[in-house]
């Protein structure tokens, strides 16, 4: 069982993707075309982008419920600023706005020691209000058509969001596995007090984590806003669930301490297969919600099993 679970942790997501692909291939003849597959991967990019950040937060033993609102805020700022200061500066400014919300989250969580769930839940509501106030409650249309390139353009036949997704993956891979910050994040997640004693600035690590989550939300918002060409003060509710599903399905342990970034990337693709794939066979949006919810429950079920076996194995003295 232990061997199976270890294998699952590494390759489980491939089983999901394979099963999904077989199902879709039978259900719709359009699925097995290069264009469709690339589209699916491109659609999965937001979930994966924010998933990288969430992977970091979950690895640190925390959580961020405010990503949806941060995306909305960044989107509103983009739409307002693009006509004023141009596209590159507007992107930069909205990323800074997003990141500063994350820094605020991190400050409240680390300095005031408020539970991450409550902090980000409260912050999510505050930021939602701020986004609506800034936008005056309306959607803001962006007239600068060239902004669309980021979300809908193609380079060498591959949709641009896929490049963003891969580039950010490389950056996060480096951060998580190759820097001392990444090691500290994992250490904080597995044993915070031990890390504190060994002299690591735990507060700074946490602030960094939440800043990065918010930054990924900002980037995802840039891609999404560019596809819609509209600044949206309220994102479709439920995106945070998609992001969490991606993170947990990808094999990042909820107990903290272990990130699985590859898993997050692949789970992002899988979840967009569900979303986009079910679109292809003309199911209504509710069924997509239902299936993401069920997939999350399944992923949680397997995670629960894994934790139980790990505990049993530890009790028997088996090295895992």
């Amino acid at each position: 069982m232990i061997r199976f679970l270890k294998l699952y942790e590494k390759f489980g997501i491939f089983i999901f993707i394979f099963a999904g692909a077989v199902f879709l291939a039978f259900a719709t003849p359009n699925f097995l075309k290069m264009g469709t597959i690339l589209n699916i991967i491109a659609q999965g990019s937001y979930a994966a982008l924010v998933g990288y950040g969430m992977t970091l937060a979950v690895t640190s033993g925390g959580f961020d419920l405010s990503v949806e609102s941060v995306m909305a805020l960044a989107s509103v700022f983009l739409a307002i600023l693009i006509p004023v200061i141009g596209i590159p500066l507007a992107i930069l400014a909205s990323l800074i706005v997003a990141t500063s919300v994350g820094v605020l989250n991190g400050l409240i969580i680390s300095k005031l020691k408020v539970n991450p769930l409550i902090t980000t839940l409260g912050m999510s509501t505050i930021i939602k209000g701020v986004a609506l106030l800034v936008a005056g409650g309306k959607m803001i249309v962006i007239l600068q058509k060239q902004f669309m390139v980021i979300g809908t353009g193609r380079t060498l036949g591959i949709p641009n969001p896929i490049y963003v997704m891969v580039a950010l993956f490389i950056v996060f891979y480096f951060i998580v596995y190759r820097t001392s910050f990444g090691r500290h994040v994992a250490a904080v997640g597995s044993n915070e007090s031990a890390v504190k004693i060994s002299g690591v600035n735990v507060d700074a690590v946490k602030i960094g984590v939440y800043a990065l989550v918010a930054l990924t939300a900002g980037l995802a918002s840039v891609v999404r806003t560019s596809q819609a060409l509209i600044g949206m003060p309220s994102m479709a509710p439920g995106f945070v669930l998609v992001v969490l599903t991606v993170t947990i399905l990808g094999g990042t342990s909820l107990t903290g301490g272990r990130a699985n970034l590859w898993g997050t990337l692949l789970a992002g693709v899988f979840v967009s297969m569900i979303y986009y794939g079910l679109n292809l066979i003309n199911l209504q949006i509710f069924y997509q919600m239902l299936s993401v919810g069920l997939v999350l429950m399944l992923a949680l079920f397997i995670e629960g099993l894994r934790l139980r076996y790990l505990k049993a194995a530890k009790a028997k003295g088996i090295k895992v």
Partner: protein
Amino acid sequence: MKKGSALVWAANRWDNFGLPFLVLVLLLVFSLLSSPFRSAYNLVSNLSFSSLVGIGSIGMVFCIMSGDFDISIGSMSALAGVLGASMVTRIGSPAAMLITIAVATICGFINGVFVTKLRIPAFITTLGMQFVYRALAYIYTTNTPVYIKDDFWLSIGSGSILGIPSPILLMALCFAAAVYVLRKTSFGRYVIAVGTNRNAAMLSGINVDFIKTAVFTLVGFFVGIATVVTASYLGSVNPGMTGQGYEFQVITIVVLGGTALTGGNGNLLGALFAALFLTYMQSGLAMVQVNSYWQYVATGFVLIFAVGINRVKSAVLGQRDT
């Protein structure tokens, strides 16, 4: 006097007097600012209105006290509401209301089973279930609101018994029952024990899984009652809108009421006052014609402020952090 003893004095009295005092200040400020606010009609109708979140928060007090959260209650309310409301014409409104309460209770039970059997943090499990329930509500109604045209159901929100609006009576009844269960029954003591120290509770022979499942079931039960009242006020249940943000309001109320996030320490009367505070605050902000989006900002601040207050309180009294 010892240094800091004024702080200790204040911290000791915060739970019983601090929040009622805040409610009074709030009422006073908004009464001065707005004449429609201070009308007896507005004050009473908001008191009834506070039952929507007040009744819903009772179960959550038990839940947070046992060391967990349930963030699926908004969707649960939508699902239970649409199922009950759609049956009014077939089985009559009393039975349909019972269906609503029963569905919410079953949803709570399912949450409890998942949380205890999966051993995954409850907020993630219930986040998943939030989507499942919402999706089921959509699928059942194919995304159309269900209207209630039954006089008896509609009279729950607007009716009164002996001159007291029935939602207020219902809320008082629910709180009295909950206080009794918490203080006088072994179940109440077990919930406190599980929330204070799960392992110790388990070792002393308490069936922790059973207590947790019961607590989540209780959350569903009270959400069901609140849904009946909400549906009566609105005259309809909307699969998409009903219960949107409900979990956030209820958790804010419970935390503002002084229930510690670390578990073991619940405050039902505090939750009642917090429900009044939030309802009057939202009504007051609307009446002084603040842009309605400020409501989000204000409510979010209240939540973080509430946690901050609880932390300061426990730091002063040398208790565990929240």
